[in-house]
């Protein structure tokens, strides 16, 4: 990967961080960067079909954001895949912990990926962590 490629590791489940991660993924992907998103820990559950898409606010900004017409973070992640060059991978370890199968996840996610492969594939890229 090159330095113009963007790798995003999302592990938190708060509104502000999920929103910012989704903004970086979507805008980066539609602007010509190859984007790779790795969902793990508290972030993954939001991408299980039927799970709530409303994440708890971390602070005042997150609470304020709730009442505004901000694009939902899951829509932005889907935009990244459908409108740009992005792939979103669920962490295989987190899937094992949650007893989740690939068919349980939103259809725009790619196949599960291990951390070793993610780190290998994204070597040399920008890495963003949320």
């Amino acid at each position, binding site marked *: 990967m090159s330095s113009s490629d963007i790798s995003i590791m999302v592990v938190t489940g708060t509104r502000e961080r999920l929103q910012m991660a989704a*903004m970086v993924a*979507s805008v980066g992907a*539609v*602007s010509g960067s190859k984007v790779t998103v790795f969902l793990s820990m508290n972030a993954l559950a939001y991408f299980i079909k039927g799970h709530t898409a409303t994440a708890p606010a971390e602070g005042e900004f997150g609470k304020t954001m709730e009442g*505004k*017409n*901000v*694009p939902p973070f899951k829509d932005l992640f889907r*935009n990244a895949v459908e*409108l740009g060059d992005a792939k979103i991978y669920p962490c295989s370890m987190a899937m094992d912990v949650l007893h989740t199968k690939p068919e349980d996840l939103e259809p725009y996610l790619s196949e599960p990926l291990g951390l070793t492969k993610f780190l290998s594939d994204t070597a040399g890229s920008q890495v963003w962590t949320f």
Partner: protein
Amino acid sequence: MAEKKVIDARGTFCPGPLMELIANMKLINIGDELEVLSTDKGSAADIPEWINKVGHQMVSTSEENGVWHVVVRKAK
């Protein structure tokens, strides 16, 4: 003959207007224009940035009563 379509993204925050523009850009022909209406000042700055980066054409940007009118042309 080139056509022009209006995208009403008023009330949507960044990057909503940009995403709506890009989704519509895929549906139009080269030479056609899109006019994005946005109340988000950041998007009025971000859309020209994206247009220049990916190689489309800016036609005009104007503001009237708190609404930005960003007109772009599909170039490729």
